[in-house]
């Protein structure tokens, strides 16, 4: 039997240890994520790190108590007498109703703050909030936004992505984004619900037929990424991918110049539909025909 003093010391050490481990896991969690390629991604990773640290603390605390009991509190096989005589303990009960309440409020508050920092702007809002701070709204929107913000239309259909650059009159099958500049994506679906998702960007947005949804964000890290459909959209869903590039301002300018002779590629789905791969078990259930690429509009 441990003396009460020793017990307190042991408790203190284990709590300290738990704090250290949870903090360390919280720091590690940044490595579990893909590269952070947008300004928004950093905030999401901070939120995740906070959630991992707090979650680890709770996990270690509860599981630690259970495992400790399993090791130290085993009964003899035929001993069915009482475990311990204490019947309820109001202080303790209050304590553990208060604990989750406080934790939840804390998590909620942090998540709220970080969501606010994302600044992905209200959905469905065509009006730019920043512009509305001063004078004549509609004038400002008409004049300012096209200059400040790069606008790109993203059109999804089963199972193909097309991107339109209305300011430059370009239509392509790969998405190029300018580094360090705010970008507004205008999302449209021609048939079913699709989802815009680039893991390195840390957000996704469903694309609902008949709704033009848009969101803004800031690409930061140059490189090549992959767009994947995130909302199940039928037979060739797994193949609904497109390449995404974040280009330096110069490279972006050059690409806009050269993109006029960019040919629209057939989608992976259309290619696979035309040449079915070898699969061990085939059902050959009928499917919607994959879309053919848009003809570039001039």
């Amino acid at each position: 039997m441990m003396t009460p003093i020793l017990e307190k010391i042991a408790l203190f050490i284990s709590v300290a240890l738990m704090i250290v481990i949870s903090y360390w896991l919280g720091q590690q969690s940044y490595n579990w994520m893909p590269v952070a390629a947008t300004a928004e991604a950093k905030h999401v990773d901070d939120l995740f790190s906070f959630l991992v640290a707090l979650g680890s603390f709770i996990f270690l605390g509860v599981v630690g108590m259970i495992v400790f009991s399993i090791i130290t509190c085993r009964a003899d096989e035929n001993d069915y007498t009482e475990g311990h005589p204490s019947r309820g303990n109001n202080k303790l009960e209050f304590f553990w109703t208060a604990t989750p309440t406080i934790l939840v409020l804390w998590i909620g508050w942090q998540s709220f703050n970080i969501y606010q920092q994302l600044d992905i702007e209200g959905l469905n809002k065509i009006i730019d909030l920043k512009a509305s701070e001063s004078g004549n709204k509609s004038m400002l929107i008409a004049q300012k936004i096209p200059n400040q913000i790069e606008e790109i239309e993203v059109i999804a259909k089963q199972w193909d992505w097309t991107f339109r650059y209305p300011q430059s009159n370009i239509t392509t099958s790969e998405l190029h984004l300018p580094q360090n500049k705010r970008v507004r994506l205008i999302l449209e679906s021609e048939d079913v619900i699709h989802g815009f998702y680039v893991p390195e960007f840390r957000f996704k947005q469903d694309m609902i037929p008949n709704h033009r949804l848009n969101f803004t964000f800031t690409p930061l890290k140059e490189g090549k990424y992959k767009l994947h459909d995130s909302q199940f959209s039928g037979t060739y869903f797994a193949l609904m991918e497109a390449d995404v590039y974040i280009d330096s301002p110069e490279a972006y300018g050059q690409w806009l110049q050269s993109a006029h002779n960019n040919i629209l590629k057939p989608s992976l789905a259309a290619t696979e539909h035309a040449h079915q791969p070898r699969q061990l078990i085939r059902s050959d259930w009928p499917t919607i025909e994959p879309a053919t690429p848009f003809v570039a509009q001039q």
Partner: protein
Amino acid sequence: MTHSSATNLKESQIKQQAWKRYFTFNTDHKVIGIQYLVTTFIFFLIAGILSMILRGELITPPSDLVDRSLYNGLFTLHGTVMIFLWIIPSLVGLANYLIPLMIGAKDMAFPKLNAIAFWLIPIGGILLLSSFLLPSGSAQAGWWSYPPVSIQNPTGYPINGQTIWLLSIIVLGISSIMGGVNFLTTILRMRAPGMHFFRMPIFVWTVLSAQLLQLFCLPALTGAAIMLLFDLSFGTNFFNPTSGGDPVLYQHLFWFYSHPAVYVMVLPAFGVFSEVIPAFTRNPLFGYKSVAVASFGISLVSIFVWVHHMFASGTPSWMRILFMFSTMLVAIPTGVKVFAWTATVWRSKLHLDTPMLFALGGVVMFIIGGITGVMLGAVAFDLHVNNTYFVVGHFHYVVYNTITMALFAAIYFWFPKMTGRMYHEGWGKIHFWLTFIGANLTFFPMLPVGLQGMVRRISSYDPQYAGWNILASLGAFLLGMATLPFMANLVVSCLIGIQAPNNPWYATGLEWATTSPPPTENFETIPTVTLAPYSYGLPQYSTVDTTDEEAIKRHGN
């Protein structure tokens, strides 16, 4: 000699009849309970085989085992069968067996309705599975069946897999509503004298809360299914965007039921933990009243959180934030429960028999399910991992690693009561360890691979995700193997297991006060309840009667 062979003959006749009544329209709640448990277990095995084919496809990055449509059909039916034909009805079966016994009633309030509700399950299930044979193939739009994908009908046949899917969901929904009415009436009206609310075992509380939710929310799903069926078959435009319908409306209706449904599933599992843990720690359930009230709290809050499944569906920011907070509120009553179990275990007299292993394993894994769930409630994080394998990992930690584990705990715990025989402890432990290891090996890798961005419902994936996927697939095959010792144990023990005493665990609760198995009317005389529940420590639950040969035999086992 002649005398004993005559009784043997009579006994075997009775046995034969006993065996046959499980295939009849029987109205005894105990028979119906076992009918449910066995039927749903068969569906669990079928859906498990489907999942192993899915994991077989995903063990390598390209699509090389099954074609794309078949893969979509497989995960749709895997998910649908697991939810609507395993988790929900198996818990109903367990409750069917236990509730009248636990509250000291002779049967359920409406025995015929009870039997009808059961027989709708195999009908709905067989209907659903038969759709694999249709020329159009089975439904392929996922267990959510979001339109417009679900109302596309490239075959043009008037009846396709999706039609069958919707019909069977409607059949199963009707069965659930019948069950809900029956449970509520039984629990509210048929308790034995002295069994007032705060003397009910937690399992009864959780079933009451879960069935209230079922009655309140299920009509939304049934309504949505009927509307979708009209869109699909008769060209109405509730959800069809090409003619002015709103597919997002379906999502609201669907999640208005299907979020609370996760509590319909998990609450009785919490109830099982709350029965098993006190019995094997010899402690009263710590904070009994808080745990009882927390069940209601969970039900109530869970009605107001459904939009967390739609954070990415064009939901405006104010709504996202509102539902983020309501989602996190559920963590409070849930936290109360987890703490109560932990405190019950702390400083107790632990017996690690198989039911307790499954209960503790389930609680530990539920903590992972719960923590990842709160993470998903945080909008900004959810927008990254929603519809990735992170979500798949999270909900399998709940549906398999918590609820299915709780069901195993329950089956082992009440097996002696149901069959009058003991299961084999050694094989039970092997089953536990294979399941515990297999389940973590299968579902843990889904969390990191989801953080990395692997989207769910894809039949081929980027090779960068291959490592974790191999582990998950191997885990799934192990998990499949793990059910073999379980089935062997139950079948063999049922036939030749040691005779079980009435109360092998020295547990409290009225179900242990009658014979094993209980007589048709449950109790010789309806008992009067005078004690608080979980009165462990009282002499009648503390002493092993050394003159009881059965008890000694059991411990020699």
